[in-house]
């Protein structure tokens, strides 16, 4: 079992995943426009905070995000 977050982005973006139980950074990487999939490992991280940041600084965030199991 692997916990993942996936989606699509219209342009290149940095996505930072923060574990909401201890606010540690789980993942931090850049993704090209299109589909992306972030592998968070085999242990359940619980809810996470997902932050997207474009290269011009424009950003957005979603809290209480539940990774899916695949």
């Amino acid at each position, binding site marked *: 079992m692997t916990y993942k977050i996936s989606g699509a982005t219209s342009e290149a973006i940095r996505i*930072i995943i*923060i574990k909401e139980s201890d*606010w*540690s*950074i789980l993942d*931090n990487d850049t993704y090209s426009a299109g589909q992306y999939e972030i592998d968070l490992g085999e242990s359940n991280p619980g*809810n996470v*905070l997902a*932050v*997207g*940041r*474009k290269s*011009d*600084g*424009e*950003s*957005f*965030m*979603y*809290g*209480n*995000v539940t990774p899916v199991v695949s």
Partner: protein
Amino acid sequence: MAYKISGTLSDDARIIVLEEVGWSLESNTEESAGVYEIEGLDDSNKLVIARKSNGNGIAYGFVTPIFYNASVIIDSNITWNTHQDFSGLDVVITNGAIVTLNQPSYQIIFTANSLTIDSGAGINGPNGGPGCNCQSNQDAAAPGGGKTDTSNKCFGSGGGHGGTGGSGRGGTTTLTGGASHDSATTPTARGGGGGGANYNIDFTGGNGGSAFKAVCTGTIKIDGYIRCNGVNGKGSPTTGLYHGGGGAGGAIWIIAGDVTGNGQLQAYGGNGVYYNSTTAGGGGGGGRIAVHTSNWNFTGSSSVAGGTGYSTGGAVGSFNVIT
């Protein structure tokens, strides 16, 4: 670090600040609705995330923190045994607080935007070159260490620094004081310790004064004091034996835009133990004070006098203001 971000929140929120260089987490705090400030940041751009308890929130990249003029208040006694970096901050020593310098091996360097020492408060450095431990039966360590008599007269000469240490004398023996050393304009050395009065552990030579350097881009205001004095020798002033030498004054090197105040700058030598005109420990030599500033408006007192002891005591040290 004297940069901050601030803003206003309509709801309680967790504010997470990430550095945009390296993407490390720099701050993570729960803030109540209303005005908030996140202080203590560095000057790099930030990614700031505000997350409400329901998971909603906002994020901003390229956030530039603003500089703020922060103060560090020292209002109770503390000890500094290493360098003190308060870069960008204004440091105030107040409420009678004494900052004790306790680093005998090297000069403590203090860095800040400004330094204010209120009346009654100060920086005290009596821990330079160690006075000779009597039982070790050795001279105090170089540079500038006083000498120790190993005969049964038991006395020591004064430590040297800016001024040569005073000679000590007992019976028919005279020991010269510790040598003058260090720069008069960029002093970095501690004061030499005094020679010991042999045979009794309690009768040591006095420690030399500490070495202290204060570097401020702004003003150093001294209404209190900075003292790097040598310590008096220990011994018996009521008998013909056991007369420790005084430690030499230490080093005070100030670099500041302005120097003001009416307090004290001292680096004098400690006294040798005195029995009579032919039997006494040597006085410590005066220390070295150098001030580099474009605005010298200090109206207080200063001393680099040598300590008293046998004969003329320790020689006067050096005091220079370079504008």
